[in-house]
């Protein structure tokens, strides 16, 4: 839309009506504003109803104390102070930090695979479909499936034994650290296809000539990846990073539910599962909400840097 600011060709005379520009400007603006608001309204209503209201409700509940599913009373900050003395809560957040430490893998592995597909490595069409298939399987099914695969006498250990790697055959879901990293590996298997697709969408925006030029200049795969692709793909990498940073802490629930139930001991206990456990198994709604809010803050802090970066990238003026 543009508004003409050119001077009038003829001097105004008494009979000339007031400037048509000035007369139509306000109603037109108002109409556009209302039209825009109307378009945004459904999304706003959904966001308020299903995001903001539950969040506020969660905050309110976190200040309540309840016995079972009965009535509740105001508990002040008790639920929050309790968390600092609760070894299970502390263990769950320590595990969350360990999971977050695996983020580089979540970001780099799909990127490498996406670039290989983008460069039409042998079998690229096949792999483009294959990588996405795990993402289409319901996580709860993935969990049940991997419980069999990772069992002491399961196919992974059988394979390791058959190729002479007996010492590497272990009880994947039994150890303090092996259980958590097995869980993360299963989650990565399940979700990395989404990353590959996201990166492929980003790669489609990079002009072919740029990559070809780098190739002709003698840049190898890794050089092209880090010197050309990554800088040009920064917004996509940032988007995927934010998704992963929050995702690794909320995607794992169905897998924990099906694979380990937080065990052995608290080895795979993550805050998201603890919220469920505290609320529905321990019937402690207030405390469950407080843990949920703590997780929300944890994820927000983790994501804020990437989101800020994305915002800067998005609002940067072209040079």
């Amino acid at each position, binding site marked *: 839309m543009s508004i003409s600011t050119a001077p009038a060709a003829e001097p105004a005379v008494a009979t000339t009506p007031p400037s048509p520009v000035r007369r139509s400007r306000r109603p037109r603006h108002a109409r556009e504003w209302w039209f825009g608001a109307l378009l945004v309204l459904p999304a706003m209503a959904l966001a308020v109803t299903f995001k903001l209201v539950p969040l506020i409700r969660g905050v309110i509940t976190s200040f309540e*104390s*309840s*016995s*079972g*599913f*009965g*009535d509740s009373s105001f508990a002040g900050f008790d639920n929050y102070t309790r968390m600092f003395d*609760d*070894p299970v809560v502390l263990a769950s957040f320590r595990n969350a930090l360990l999971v977050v430490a695996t983020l580089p893998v979540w970001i780099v592995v799909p990127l490498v695979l996406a670039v290989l597909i983008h460069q039409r490595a042998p079998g690229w069409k096949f792999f483009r479909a294959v990588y996405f298939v795990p993402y289409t399987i319901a996580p709860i099914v993935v969990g049940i499936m991997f*419980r069999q695969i990772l*069992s*002491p*006498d399961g196919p992974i250990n059988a394979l390791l034994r058959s190729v002479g790697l007996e010492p590497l055959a272990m*009880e994947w*879901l*039994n*150890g*303090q650290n092996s*259980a958590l990293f097995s869980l993360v590996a299963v989650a990565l298997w399940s979700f990395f296809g989404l990353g590959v697709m996201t990166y492929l969408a980003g790669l489609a925006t990079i002009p072919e000539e740029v990559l070809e030029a780098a190739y002709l200049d003698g840049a190898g795969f890794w050089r092209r990846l880090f010197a050309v692709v990554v800088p040009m793909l920064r917004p996509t990498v940032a988007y995927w990073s934010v998704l992963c940073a929050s995702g690794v802490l909320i995607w794992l629930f169905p897998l924990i539910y099906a694979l*380990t*139930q*937080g*065990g*052995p*001991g*608290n080895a795979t206990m993550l805050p998201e599962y603890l919220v*469920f*456990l505290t*609320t*529905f*198994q*321990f*019937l*402690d*709604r207030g*405390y469950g909400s407080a843990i949920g809010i703590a997780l929300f803050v944890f994820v927000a802090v983790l994501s804020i840097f990437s989101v800020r970066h994305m915002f800067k990238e998005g609002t940067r003026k072209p040079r």
Partner: protein
Amino acid sequence: MFRRRLTGVLAAGVATAALLAGCGGGSDAAADGPVTLKVLTWEPGGTEYWQQVKTAFEASHQDIKLELQSVPFDKYPEVQGPYITSQSGPDVMANNAGLELFDRRGAYTPLGDKAAEINKDLVTYSGACEEFDTSKPCYGVPFSYQGNVLYYNKDVLTEAGLDPENPPATWDDFGAACEAVKNAGKTCLALGLSGTFPAYWDFPEIARNYLTEDDIRGLLNGTLSWKDPKLVQVLEKLAEITTKGWTNKNAPSITMLPDGADIFQRGDAAFAGTIISDAVNWEAFGKALGDDKLGVTRWPTINPSAPLAGKFSGIEGAVYGVTKWSEKKDAGLKFISWLAGKENGELWVKYAKGQPLNKNVDPALLPSSPAFKKIQELIAEPTLHAGVMLSGPEADALARGWQQITLGQLTVDKWAEQMQQALERSPTKKQGN
């Protein structure tokens, strides 16, 4: 024009509201046709039994239709929780007797004086009443009898050189039998520690050797400390089950149902400690192994002189109560009263192959399986079931601690400390409710 439109919109609104009110249908009094009663259940006893319940109840109560919402047992709390917090949903709901029911009692209509009247022919219904005291408020009606026994595979015992007609009766004998079974290349006790089932099932069988009924009530009220020497001894013996190598090695990472039970059903283990009714009972094992190969016994005794050592940890199965928010309370009451009756008791025996709670069930209908007959002997001397006295945090800490003990990551003293912390975190017990 605008007025006409507005009138039209209002008329449509009124019509829609009237239609919705009609669909919602609702109170007992205003019903023009049969009342539809929504029942939330995990179908203890299986789908076939519940189909029979629906058919038989509706046939004798033409004015009531049942709408069963069946949820898998392990998903039940997450479906039921939102119903309770929003005070809406089913007219009748199930919960296990004991703390699980007491914790959710705010969702149920207390039965008052009707409790004794409805339950008059039941062997027991105290697990549906606060503190297992029938003089206190009761919240629902049970119809099955539940508890724990030790099943065994006679073939595996024979292979190990043991007498299948005389299973080990003491803790030491059990240890010796396990060594023999291991030497024969099989697992002694099939177990899956991921999840709380073994915490509910195995704990009371050890606890009977150390606790009195007063102690068990102390456990219910949260007054018995987990650092009490009696409870520490219970934990020590639970620990022995896995640390002495009596179980499958992957026990910490698998669930009892179905994984642990599968090991036993495949014929790879000598023993399995599970329940007498519902999901995995003598019938399921009998089908898998053959009725003639299935034995059943009491858990081995650790301390024969303990007052409860020779008793059966008995408890009602699922308890069905009418929800506080139901607008069809009369119909709900009729249904749960029927559940406790002789007719349903007989359906329970016939289709679910479970132990009935109603005393008037025709004995001729009882299964003729040797295992079922043995169960009749074992349940003759019941006592309180210590497992259902555990709060959610305690049952969870018991299960997780046992996993850690098995993996050598925890000492029994530390386990007792964790149990005490869990007790103190338990909202119900902490507040003395």
